[in-house]
């Protein structure tokens, strides 16, 4: 699964991951392989990614939008702390 995390100032992350947990407006949710297409706004909170090797990577974002489509995730974050 491919993910891109972009802020207006720079591209934070671009690569393959196993899963990602994001702070959705209606509650946090996890995206795994073959997730249904979704567009959701995000709240302030942490984005927790698990990469191919199984290690966790955490980013604190202040809000944003996520789009998941055909195993491609685009996360537009307002800013990463």
């Amino acid at each position, binding site marked *: 699964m491919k993910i891109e995390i*972009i*802020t*207006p*100032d720079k591209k934070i992350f671009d690569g393959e991951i196993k899963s990602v947990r994001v702070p959705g*407006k209606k509650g946090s949710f996890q995206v795994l392989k073959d997730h249904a297409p979704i567009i*959701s706004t995000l709240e302030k909170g942490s984005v927790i990614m698990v990469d191919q090797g199984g290690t966790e990577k955490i980013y604190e974002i202040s809000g944003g*939008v996520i789009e998941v489509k055909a195993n491609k995730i*685009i996360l*537009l974050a307002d800013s990463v702390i």
Partner: protein
Amino acid sequence: MANLKAIRIRITSVKSTRQITSAMKMVSAAKLRKAQDKIVRLRPYANKLHELLVDLSNSLSDSEVENVYGRVSPPEKVLIIVITSNRGLCGAFNANVIKETKRVISEKYADQFRKGNLQLLAIGKKGFDYFRKQKMNMLPEQNNLLHDLTFDNVNRVAEQIMNSFSILEFDRVELIYNQFKNAAVQNLTNEVFLPVETAPAVKGNTTPTDYIYEPDKEEIIKELIPKSLKIQFYKAVLDSFVAEHGARMTAMHKATDNATGMIRDLTLLYNKARQATITNQILEVVSGAEALRG
């Protein structure tokens, strides 16, 4: 024939001017590259955000979304945002913006101006100083935005403007700035910032994906519109910033070239004068010797 010493002094002075202008050119080139990087990094975000908005507004009819930033009313209270630079020596960069602003005021908003309903917000010292001298109705300047140009800082200003628009302080907000095309060319741009036009429904050939929307389409659109406005504002400031350095680089390049040409002409003049003196001296010696023999 001009005085030898005077020419020599002139040459030295032009040479040191050339050194300064060529150093300024280098500095501008470096800053230009850095600022251009910022634009390049902003582009993916702006494009994706725009795609999302178009996607969403395609699947919604306009009337479904109430949008405080889309309120269209006769422009009685107008704000013009003038983006210039803090420093000079960049050719016609600032003069162009000021000229365009004056034209817009006298042609489009003469009535509002007479009634005192026209305000200006200057980003950049040059524009601010000029319009303050003209006794225009100015909002507090935002010149230090250009010293520390980050999305967060620009955001704060954008939010203020959007806020005053939503509480009916302004009916229309316009941006006047130089858009960066390449280092030598700036496009003078005048665009409407608020009210926002909803993204045009483009009939793309891509089949629409059946998305799950969370919380729902309206909420998402309501969040995305202010976001895209802020991006538009940031892009304008950034564009002007890049254009400024491009303009300065070109101006300084021309100045360096002119100085080089001047030095060449002066050196020629200097050598001519020097040779004329030598010829005169030889003539004197020869005629002196001739007189002795006589």
